[in-house]
Structure formats: structure tokens, C-alpha cells
């Protein structure tokens, strides 16, 4: 009878860990163990089924000598650069305009942000139709009287990737806007007032005072948008299906088709590891700095 409370106490002390342990296990297996597993496959000769032998870096060599993969990597760079620049530019302008005490701010914000609630498949389907050269936006402009207007990028391999950029920008600007707006709202208004009294115009105040103060917001937007662009898969698939030819192939679509369509599991795993390392190189320092700030008390 005397020992039972102490047992109960000890059980109670373990209870929190016990409750957390299924999640720890799930994440340990589902994230970390599976990553190792993928790494093992990437060092094996697996094709249609996993085979657990060891062929060293052969699959990585094969991957980097596949022209399709090279195209995918180039596309990723072009896409990420344009996507980031355009999304950040428009998102920032939107946030600054919205911060001028405008009427109907809530409604406007809702309009800019609703694409974030849509599936990339829906976005891709809609933009595929809009960019359709025979019936879409080109036709409309032609009918309005500008007969020579041509907008057939989606059918031309050398520029089709820009179509993916357009659709991705449309979907994600609201997100950048929301973060910038939150940053702007955190800035003390008296700074703007003081600068105005000094005689500085609004554009100058924004460029040389406000925008530099938005550094943390910029960091978040850049990191999160890069992450979106590296894993973007559904949008490409729905909009161009990697085509015309392999003109809009991306690492994510390459990985998918190598693994599930072309029976090159080893190459697919190697490409997945390349993607993972790219994301980790961006995300881990970011998370580290965020957590460190957290601990110092925000």
C-alpha cells in the first residue's frame, strides 16, 4: 500500500513522454529512417523493384549524365530565380499599397490570397486554358482588334517554362503579401512621420527606411518560396506535363517519372536525394536561426 503512490508518481512522470512517443516514432520512421532508406536505394542497382546491393555512386553518375535531369536542374534555377523575383516584387508592392489606409482592405487582401487555397492542379488546369493559344487570352486580344498579338508560350519549348512561372506567381503572391504586410504593421508609424517632417518623399522613405527594416520578412519569404519552388510538382504536371518534349521538366517531375514510369528506381532515389540536400541546405540554417532567436526570447 505504501509503495503504490510512488509507482503512480513515477508512472505520472513518464506519462508525457509516453504520450509523445508514438509521434516521435512516426516522425523518426517516416522522416529520418525513410530518408536513410532512400539513400540506400540510391546506392543500389534497383530498377523496377528495390534491390539491396551496393553499386557506389553509379546511380548518381547516371543521373548527372542524363540530359533530362540537366534540363530539369537548369529549369529549376530559371524557375526559382524568376518566381522569387517576381513574387517578391509584386507581393511587396501589394503590401505597401495596402498599408496606405485604403478602403476595403480586407476584401482586397482576400482577393489576392484566395489562390493559396486552391490546389496546384486546379491552378494548372485554369492557366492551361487561359494560355491556350487558339481559344485563350491570345484569341481575346486578337478579337479586340490587335490581330498580330501572339501569346503561344505554352506550345514553344524555349519559353514554356515562363508559363509555369506565371501560374506559380499568380498562386503565391498573396502569401508574400501577407508576410510583408505583417512586417509593415510591426513598424512604428512615427518613423514615417519623422522622415516626412524631415522632408523625405514617400518613395524614398520606403526604399531607404522601411524596406531595410523588413529584412526578417524577406528572409522568411525567400526561404519559403524557394522551398515551394523546389518541390513544385503538381503545377508542372497539370500545366505542361513537363512538356513540350521535356522543356519544362523539373527535378520533382523527373524523380516521379524515373521512379514510377521508367523503372529507374535507383536514379529516381538519387534525384530525390539531390532534392533533399538542396532543401536541407536552405531550411536547416533557417530553422536554426529561427529557433536560436526563439530561445533568446523574441
Amino acid at each position: 500500500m505504501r509503495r503504490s503512490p510512488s509507482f503512480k508518481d513515477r508512472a505520472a512522470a513518464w506519462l508525457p513522454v509516453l504520450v509523445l512517443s508514438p509521434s516521435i516514432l512516426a516522425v523518426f520512421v517516416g522522416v529520418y529512417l525513410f530518408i536513410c532508406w532512400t539513400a540506400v536505394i540510391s546506392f543500389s542497382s534497383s530498377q523496377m523493384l528495390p534491390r539491396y546491393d551496393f553499386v557506389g555512386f553509379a546511380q548518381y553518375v547516371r543521373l548527372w549524365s542524363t540530359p533530362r535531369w540537366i534540363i530539369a536542374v537548369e529549369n529549376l534555377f530559371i524557375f526559382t530565380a524568376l518566381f522569387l523575383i517576381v513574387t517578391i516584387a509584386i507581393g511587396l508592392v501589394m503590401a505597401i499599397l495596402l498599408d496606405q489606409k485604403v478602403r476595403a482592405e480586407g476584401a482586397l487582401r482576400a482577393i489576392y490570397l484566395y489562390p493559396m487555397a486552391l490546389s496546384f492542379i486546379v491552378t494548372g488546369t485554369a492557366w492551361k486554358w487561359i494560355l491556350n493559344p487558339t481559344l485563350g487570352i491570345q484569341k481575346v486580344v486578337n478579337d479586340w482588334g490587335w490581330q498580330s498579338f501572339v501569346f503561344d508560350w505554352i506550345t514553344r519549348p524555349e519559353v514554356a517554362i515562363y508559363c509555369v512561372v506565371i501560374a506559380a506567381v499568380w498562386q503565391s503572391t498573396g502569401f508574400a503579401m501577407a508576410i510583408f504586410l505583417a512586417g509593415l504593421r510591426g513598424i512604428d508609424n512615427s518613423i514615417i512621420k519623422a522622415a516626412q517632417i524631415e522632408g523625405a518623399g514617400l518613395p524614398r522613405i520606403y526604399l531607404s527606411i522601411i524596406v531595410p527594416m523588413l529584412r526578417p520578412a524577406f528572409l522568411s519569404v525567400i526561404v519559403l518560396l524557394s522551398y515551394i519552388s523546389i518541390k513544385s510538382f503538381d503545377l508542372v504536371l497539370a500545366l505542361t506535363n513537363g512538356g513540350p518534349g521535356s522543356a519544362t521538366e523539373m527535378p520533382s517531375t523527373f524523380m516521379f517519372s524515373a521512379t514510377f514510369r521508367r523503372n529507374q528506381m535507383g536514379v529516381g532515389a538519387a534525384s530525390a536525394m539531390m532534392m533533399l540536400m538542396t532543401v536541407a541546405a536552405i531550411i536547416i540554417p533557417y530553422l536554426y536561426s529561427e529557433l536560436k532567436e526563439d530561445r533568446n526570447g523574441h
Partner: protein
Amino acid sequence: MATDLRSARRSQQLGRLFIYGSLVALAAFYLMPLWVMIVTSLKSLDEIYAGSFIGLPKAVTFEAWSKAWGTACIGTKCAGLKPYFINSLLMVIPAVILSSGIGAINGYVLTKWRFKGSNVVFGMLLFGCFLPFQAVLLPMAQVLGKLGLSGSIPGLVLVHTVYGIAFTTLFFRNYFITIPDELTKAAQIDGAGFFRIFFSIMLPAALPIIVVSCIWQFTQIWNDFLFGVSFTAGDSTPVTVALNNIVNVTMGRKQYNVDMAAAMIAAIPTLVVYVVAGRYFVRGLTAGAVKG
């Protein structure tokens, strides 16, 4: 002096005009695809091929909607999106409840019952938020096969729950950290146990973040494509995969109105959630970026 004031006022008015003009132009650009989807889905195919893209339909018809919902063909099966829409519902409801519930209790443990190493655990969970799922697709496919869950809705529920935990834990952890520890300490002194404190103190206080977590998970899981297309085929695919299949049917004259109606059907659940609870949606969106 008077002219100075007037010109200042005029330039201010011009500034306002510029601001509103830009905002409205941007709004038009962001609404255009939705507008095009809706009007296209309400037109007859003949009208579309006659070259009406952006204008209102001459005669509104819901034919495309009923076709997309009930009779459009995917492969050899012609039952429309309806069965796949139901698949998505069967997938999303349990997955949202499970992942949000687990996230809630994890957040509670990680803030109010900290133990040695709990920060490390949190850091490891956090990386799960930014995992490129390509890196776990192959092993997951193997494991689902071994468990007898491959190609099934319960399999997708499991996958979405596992990979949803990271985000939901982040939400609840960042929220519970703002609830003062004194509150739980006092309850403990009064004799309340681990679960008692969770259910009668923490959960009632967590209503806003419960909404954020559920909305975020609902949107993510409903819109998922990668897991759906990798782990399911045929009759058990979610609606996003079915939509992509409908759009990529290559036989016969392309039915753009049915495509757009199908896209709208797949988009409506998340759009409704967004319209009803947009405020919470934005909070979920910025939670990964702006610390709670």
C-alpha cells in the same frame, strides 16, 4: 500660399488615385482565372469553340457541371468526379482529426511537460514541415505494401497523418507557449492530472488554434496530389488526381467546359473554407514564417 496648398492637395489626390488604380488592377488580374473558370464551365461547347473566352455565356447551361460530377470519363470508367470527391472526403476527415488531435497533445507536452531533450525532439519534428516528400516516397510505397494498405484510402489517411504531425505540433506548441505555466502549475497543486489539465484547461483555451490547425490540414490534404498519385490508382484516387486525369483525356473534341467545371468542383471545398474562415487560414499560412 493658397495655390501651394491646392497643388499639394491635388498631388495627394493623384497619389490616392494611383494607389486605388493599382490595387483594383491587381485584383482584376487575381480574379481573372476564377472568372474564366466559372464562365467557361457555364457555356456550351459550341459557344466555346466559336471563340468566346472571357465574356458572359450567351445561354447559361449547367450541362458541363452535371457531366463533370456524374458522367465524365476517366479511363474506361464514366462516373464523373463524384466517387473521387467522396474518396477525398473519406481521406481528409479522419486525417484532419487525427493529425490535429495528435498535434494538440504534442504541443501540450512540449510546452507544459518539458523533459530533457524535448527541444531536440521539437527541432527534429520541425524539419518534417519542410521535408521534400520525394525523399520518402519509395520507402513509404514499400511499407504501405507490407501493411496491406497500398492503393487504399486508409493508407492515405496514415500518410497524411504522419506528415501532418510536424505542422500541427508547431501550431499548438507556439500557441500553448503563450499560456502561462502558473495556470497548469496551480491546477496540478489542486490535484488535476496530465489529461485533466489538457482537456479542461488547455483545449478550451486553444479554440482559435484548433480552427487554424484544422483549416490548414484540410487545405493541405484536400489539395495533395503527390501522395495520391504515387500511392493510389484507379477507383481509390483522391479528387485532385481524378481531375488531372479528366483534363488529360485525349480522345475526341476537348471539352473545356467540363474541365473547368471539374476544376471548380475540386476547388469548391477549400474555397468555401477560405471564404468562411479566411482569417484563420492566413494565420496558418504565416505560422511557418512569423513566430507565434
